Every structure is written in C-alpha cells, then in structure tokens.
C-alpha cells in the first residue's frame, strides 16, 4: 500500500475511529494515543484484510481491541465521564451530562456498542453480528435493552429537580 493510499484510508476513516473511541469511553486526553495506535494497527493489517465485510466493521474491531487493551493497561482509570445518577447527585453541571454520549457511557458496554453501531453509525444487525461475532438475534435483544437503558437514563436526568424545565419533553 502506498502512502497516498494509506493517507486516503486515514482521511476516509479518521472520523469514524474518533467517534467510536470516544463513544466507547475514551477520554479526550487519551484519544491521540488511541487513534495513533488504531491506524498503526490498521496499516499493519490492511494487507491481510480480505474484505469479507465492510471496512467499518473491520476498523471497529481494531478500535475496540485497542480501547480494551488500553483499559487493561490502565485498569485503575475510570471511563471518560461517569454519567450515572450518582455522579449527577454529586452535583455535576447538567449541561455536561445531557448528551447522548454521556448517557451512552452509563450503559453496560455490550449494550452501548450495539446502540452506537446501530443507531449512530447506521450498521445493520447482520453487520454488527459479524463485527462482534454474535448471533443477529443477540444483537437485536441487546439493542432493545440498550434503548430501554438509554431512555431510562434520560428519564432519570430529566426528572432531577433542577431539570424541571425539561420534564414535559
């Protein structure tokens, strides 16, 4: 692969890798290192990519593995932003909490991944099943649970006393 080709690959997929990593829970200060590692791994493995699926599902797997490896190396580090109700109760500013990403980070990882790939990245159930090596039925059940969790988290936030203005949304 020429440098031009790899640059094109980078240009085409940098945003995707950035979105996936931050939605998996990478902190802003981790992103440069993680993104660098993702594209170095991708560069190393691109010649072996057989194109059985979409490039994005393949790249997602690299992002996920890089993120998990980083988490193992820094096990003491929490996720980027803990958006649990406990954190809210501890007095975090509401505007910092009420984003889809913050809500997503409060979901169990397996639900979060299915939600972000299906709802935010537009992958099909079959593609997600392939990326995660799980049956498509499992993808759909995780998606259903993820939606419930997402809505529940959103309701929790909007029910907070200081969120009175958002109750009727």
């Amino acid at each position, binding site marked *: *692969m*020429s*440098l*031009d080709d*790899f*640059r*094109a*690959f*980078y*240009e*085409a997929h*940098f*945003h995707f890798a*950035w*979105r996936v990593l931050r939605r998996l829970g990478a902190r*802003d*200060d981790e*992103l*440069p*290192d993680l*993104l*660098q*590692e993702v*594209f*170095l*791994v991708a*560069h*190393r493995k*691109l*010649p072996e*990519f*057989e*194109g*059985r*699926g*979409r*490039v994005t599902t*393949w790249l997602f797997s690299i992002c996920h593995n890089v993120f998990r490896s980083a988490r193992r190396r820094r096990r003491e580090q929490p996720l980027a932003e803990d958006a649990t109700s406990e954190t809210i109760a501890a007095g975090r500013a*509401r*505007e910092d909490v*009420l*984003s*889809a*990403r913050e*809500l997503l980070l409060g979901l169990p990882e397996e639900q979060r991944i299915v939600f972000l790939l*299906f*709802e*935010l990245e*537009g992958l*099909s*159930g079959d593609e997600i099943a392939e990326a995660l090596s799980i049956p498509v039925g499992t993808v*759909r059940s995780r*998606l259903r649970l993820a*939606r419930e969790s*997402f*809505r529940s988290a*959103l309701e929790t936030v*909007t029910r907070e006393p200081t969120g009175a203005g*958002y109750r009727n*949304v």
Partner: protein
Amino acid sequence: MSDPKRLLEAGGNASELERELLAREITTLPSEKLEQAVWQRVLVALPPIGPGSPGGGNGAGGDGGLSGTGAAGGSTGGAAAGGASAAAASTGAGGVLVGAAKASGLGVAKALAIGVFAGTVAVTGAAELSERVAPGVTVPADRRESAAEPVLEPPAPRLRSAAAAAPSLPAPTLPASRRSFARSDEAIVPPAQPGSASARFEMPTSDLASRTRAERLALERARQALRGGDPGTALTLVEGASQTGSVLAQEREVLAIEALSAAGRSAEARTRARSFMSRFPGSPHQNHVVQFAR
C-alpha cells in the same frame, strides 16, 4: 426478521429530546488539529519512508514507498518521539531535530513530520485538540462567547442548505431554553435536506486540504441521508462532492453505488460497481462492492 427502525428514522419512535440528542451526537466531529496531529504521529511511527515521501503536511504528495508490511511502532514510541521533538522545537533547534533524526535512523521527511507535529502540540493542549465547531454551522451567540478555542482553520467550505430540519433527521438546533445542552466545543454537521438538489458544497478555496475536508463532510452528510432512507439526496451530495484525483475517490464511489442500489437503480449500480472493481483492484471495499456488480 428485519432490523427495527432506527430511532432517528421516520417512524423510529423517538421522543423529541432523544432525537435532538442523537442528532447532535452523530454530527459531532473531531477537530482538524487533532486529525493533523494524529496523522503526524502515525507517520512518525510507520516503517521507514523513502526520500520521495511527502513527509507529512496534508499528505498530498507522491508515493513515499511505504511497504505496508513492516511492524508498526505502537503508540508509545510515537508519543515519545513526538514529545522529544516537541522539546527540540520549543527551543528552536530545528537543525538539531533533523540531525538527531538522522542519527537515530529516522528519515529527514519523518523528522520534518515530527517537527510539524511538535509545532502543533506546542500550541495546542490535548483538550483543545478534541472537538471543533464545524464549518457552515451557525453558532448561537451565547455559545460563541463561551467558545475557548481560537479560530485556527483556513477558510472553510460552506453548506448551502443547513436551515431546515429533515423529517428523518432533525437538525440539532436547540431552543433557547435548552441551549445549555450544547457544549461550546462541539462540532456539528448539518443534516441534508431530503430531496434538495441544492444540498451540495461550495468550495471557496482551491487548497487541497480544505477541498478534502469539504468532500469528506459532504460524504458524511450523504451517508446520513442514505441512513435516513433518502438515497436521492445521498446521491446528489456524492455527485456534488466529486473531485478529480481525490483521496476519497473510493469512499465516494462506494457510497454512490450504495445510494444507486437503495434508489432502485440496480443497472446503474451494477455498472458503477464493475467500474469500481476494475479501477481499484486492490481496494479493501472490493468484496463489499462485488455484491452490487452481480
């Protein structure tokens, strides 16, 4: 059994607030500074690059002779190199930087790349690198006032149609009462208006990097439109973003093929898929595209 409708699709059964939050999330972009900085770090950590390489910058130069089979250095090495060169750059020791690079076996091109990265890092904090306000987005006055990030970008491409909310993908504009939802450092790509023939980019500059960014933004909007069940708009955006010799040519073609197929224009999709396969024989998209060529 088919997939359920996505929450952002028409009939996706999402509340207004859910749609706002999700629409905002899918249109958030990284900063261009982060993209450039990471590219410099990747370039530094790649296997040795020949003297004909572009050595960083926008990467628009010729083939640097990258083998593609060597072992990647990993983030630690790249970060260390970046840190070391940042120190060199901060003392103005450009000659030392190149000399040290030669002594350590790095090519001069890579050393220059390190220097560019160091210069970027020297003026940029990690948080500042993260997100940006996207071009063509009207930022409410209250957000502009609170935005800490200095404007460092060249003239940006402008979106012609960003005002109306799409039924299947609402624009992430927030009522005044909810502007506190929006962080001041987020970037947003306005969704395309379904069926709008004017949903394409203006290219106000001939600068290659700006054109590439504009094309990529157009392709992301096209992908959103396709995801939202509007292949016609997706196709308009793809064709409007077309550039000769673009580094995103493969991505553009794949998206066009998918949009043609989704629009029921199977014969055109097939023709274009076959053309793609002959134009880009080593593409990682080959096995995805082949399904449309049959």
